[in-house]
């Protein structure tokens, strides 16, 4: 009994020490954490050079320290100047001239002290590394520039330095999306001076692992799978200055753990909060939630090269048979917006006056009868095998569609493959009906209307409907060659009308982006492209 009492006494003492220690530690921490913003991310970055990486996790880790010639105005999809103070486009739309800012300094780090400001050499280095196979840095980091290639940047014929603060891009053909593409992370401007120094030191890979940029935060260190540290850049040229002294990205892969961490005050902002925890966030008075319709789209593509999906009546019948509104609640837990067009509503050029095909089983049956199939037919739906930002549960959505289509006599077999096989087979056009989706790369409607619905897309396989309709194609091709936004908007409006008449897809939904911060966080602005920016973010 004596021993027991002694043990209890020791335990109580230890617990009280723990609590006292905790208070002291918190006091010490609060002294040190003064102006340290903590962002709990969903995973480890695959690298620190946006020319090589392409996943959203890496992009969020890279954006604090890099800038592009042009950028997307925060919270919108408008292209505005960044490292370039202005630009001009030649009449034939094949020459882009950028005048660079003269006051931009690259970061000083433990590895490198710049001797000059950012200039045309840095722009040339950043693009030539990716496009010229004989460039000394091309093979450093593996030599795979996936985004550069995916955005067809081989359109660049040449890049010339006019003087230290002027650069000219020569294109092989006019492309009005070129400017929007330059807002993307792969077009970040790296320091040529740093690259030269690292090459001389025989450590060229440091350019990719110990990055030196121009952004609001200076990269400081990375502890693998654990934490990325940054310090505010006191010489940052941008209008929105960093509001905190330090930025820390805490890698926290489990969504439910991120929920508990922000509740416990261990993070100020969390990435990819679980939609299932939405009520928990909304009911917590210490937290603030944000949502906006993202630039993404989930859809059901018909393989228009295969029967009976080459028949417009069948496509319309299927549209009428699907109770799309029910999917928003069941699949997106209310965090989705019903899609009526081929572009998400947040995109400029979105046509808000398109006809809708309401859920109507009788009408669907009539259309099937008119198409010569009064008893329906048998077919397949390829269900999305993975969770994607545009569709959290492809399998469940396929089952709901299967049940809907059975009501009009269409017997659907759900087929699924592993993700790479699904991508490869659907690119080859082996499917009948395919559940697919897309996330905008740059906020330009071309990302949806051209890449996924043009004739060249059908040839390359990125147009999963394999729909090649000349009147539509002429419009989106023309829109690629016009730089006037007003004119492009009108063309895209017309293109969407034709899309909705011809229905190569059933547009299903755009998922809403969702974020959570602590209530005391200020200055956080959601990005329609789903990225997180930390300059301008502070906490009380």
């Amino acid at each position, binding site marked *: 009994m004596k021993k027991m009492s002694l043990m209890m006494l020791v335990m109580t003492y230890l*617990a009280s020490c*723990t*609590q006292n*220690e*905790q208070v002291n*530690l918190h006091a*010490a*921490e609060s002294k*040190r*954490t003064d102006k*340290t913003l*903590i962002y709990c991310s969903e*995973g*480890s970055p*695959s*690298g620190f050079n946006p020319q*090589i990486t*392409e996943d959203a996790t890496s992009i969020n880790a890279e954006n604090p320290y890099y800038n592009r010639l042009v950028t997307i105005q925060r919270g919108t999809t408008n292209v505005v100047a960044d490292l370039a103070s202005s630009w001009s486009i030649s009449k034939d739309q094949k020459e882009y001239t950028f005048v660079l800012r003269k006051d931009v300094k690259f970061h000083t780090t433990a590895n490198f002290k710049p001797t000059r400001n950012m200039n045309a050499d840095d722009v040339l280095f950043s693009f030539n590394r990716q496009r010229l196979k004989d460039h000394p840095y091309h093979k450093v*980091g*593996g*030599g*795979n520039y*996936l985004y550069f*290639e*995916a955005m067809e940047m081989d359109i660049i014929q040449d890049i010339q330095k006019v003087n230290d603060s002027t650069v000219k891009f020569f294109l092989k053909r006019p492309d009005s999306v070129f400017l929007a593409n330059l807002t993307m992370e792969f077009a970040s401007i790296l320091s040529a001076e740093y690259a030269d120094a690292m090459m001389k030191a025989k450590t060229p890979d440091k350019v990719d692992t110990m990055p030196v940029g121009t952004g609001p935060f200076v990269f400081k*260190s990375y*502890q*693998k*799978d*654990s*934490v990325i*540290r940054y310090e505010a850049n006191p010489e940052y040229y941008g209008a929105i200055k960093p509001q905190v002294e330090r930025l*820390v990205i*805490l*890698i*926290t*892969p*489990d969504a*439910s*753990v991120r929920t*508990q*961490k922000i*509740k*416990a005050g*261990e993070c100020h902002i969390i990435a990819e909060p679980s939609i299932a925890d939405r009520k928990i966030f909304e009911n917590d008075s210490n937290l603030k939630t944000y949502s906006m319709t993202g630039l993404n789209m989930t859809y059901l593509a018909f393989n228009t090269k295969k029967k009976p999906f080459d028949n417009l009546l069948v496509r319309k019948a299927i549209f009428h048979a699907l109770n799309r509104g029910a999917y928003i609640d069941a699949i997106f837990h209310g965090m989705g917006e019903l899609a009526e067009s081929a572009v998400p509503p947040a995109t400029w050029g979105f046509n808000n006056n398109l006809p809708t095909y309401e859920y109507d089983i009788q009408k669907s049956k009539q259309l099937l009868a008119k198409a010569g199939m009064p008893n329906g037919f048998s077919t397949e739906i390829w269900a999305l095998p993975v969770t994607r930002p545009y569709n959290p549960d492809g399998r469940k959505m396929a089952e709901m569609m299967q049940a809907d289509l059975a009501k009009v006599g269409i017997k659907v077999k759900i087929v699924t*493959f*592993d*993700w*790479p*096989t699904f*991508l*490869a087979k659907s*690119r080859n056009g082996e499917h009948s009906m395919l559940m*697919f*989706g*897309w*996330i905008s790369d740059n906020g330009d409607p071309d990302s949806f209307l051209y890449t996924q619905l043009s004739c060249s897309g059908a040839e*390359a*396989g*990125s147009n999963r409907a394999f729909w090649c309709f000349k009147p539509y194609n002429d419009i989106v091709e023309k829109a690629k060659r016009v730089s006037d936004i007003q004119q492009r908007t009108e063309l895209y409006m017309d293109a969407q009308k034709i899309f909705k008449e011809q229905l190569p897809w059933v547009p299903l939904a755009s998922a809403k982006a969702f974020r959570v911060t602590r209530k005391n966080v200020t200055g956080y602005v959601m990005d329609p492209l789903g990225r997180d920016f930390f300059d301008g973010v502070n906490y009380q």
Partner: protein
Amino acid sequence: MIRYSLKKLALLAITFLGLSIVAFSLIRMVPGDPVLMMLGERGASPESYAEMKATLGLDQPYIKQFGLFIWHAVHGDLGNSIVSNQSVVREFFDRFPATLELSVVALLFAMMVGLPLGIIAAIKRNTFFDYAFMGVSLVGYSMPIFWWGLILILVASVNVFDLPFFGWTPVSGRISPMFEIDSVTGFLFIDVWFSKDSWAAFWDALKHVLLPAIAMGTIPLAVIARMTRSSLLEVLGEDYIRTAKAKGLSTRRVIMVHALRNAMIPIVTVIGLSFGMVIKGAILTETIFSWPGIGRWLVNSVTSLDYPVIQGGVLLIGMAIVVVNLIVDLAYLWIDPKLRDAHDRSK
């Protein structure tokens, strides 16, 4: 003892070859193409696809790929990660200390709690203590780690039940981000002593390791407790124990000096095997507790079909487990003089 160790080390070469075959072929049985996985929805032109496959050496016949893998592996090169382009060996050793540190603490916890529980259960056989301890250990053994980990976070860190003395453990991570500890050895409990605020950092690291170690150590704890109980019960029925008791030795001396040492062999076996169990548990524990070890690294590599990381990681983990088993085998000789004599006679 040295000859025995050398014999065991020779067996390692065979194990290495077996492990290599398993690691290499298992990942290739998983459907999917790592290059297509990397390209995602956007894809690439057939030429670029072919170029990427060639760069990664995935365009070669399997047998050639395997030959190259073995050739490079015996030279200490397990290739580069497809995703990060970093050396697999370096990536492994950057993370292994975190896993090892957590595993050691988890095993210490399992032993420090499991052994006394087993001993008490054996001494108090068929009493309330026995039933309670063994019941609890059965529950511990049956609990899925991811569920147990989340329960621990909710109860101990978030303190949902508002219990006294709870709520002071952090939700996840290895140390608070305010402590900037340079990686000298990779072992945080050592590296903190090279930093400022050593004591505060040490205490913070200790608080962070507690919950993951409990989550990870619960299953081995249950196994150790049950094995200690049954092994001790068997020994307690032996004649020499009765003799010791008849000589008037105290119960404590009988248990600690005479019974426990003889009961230790199966317990040591279980502790050795628990290392494998703990490493297996690391995969889930590290994900839940955001622990930057090899478990999480391997999970990520499986989802991205990062062949070099999976085959290299499995090989290195397998070798680590084999080495631990070798140490356990050697520990038998040290613990049991009978085995040592038998081994000496066989020479």
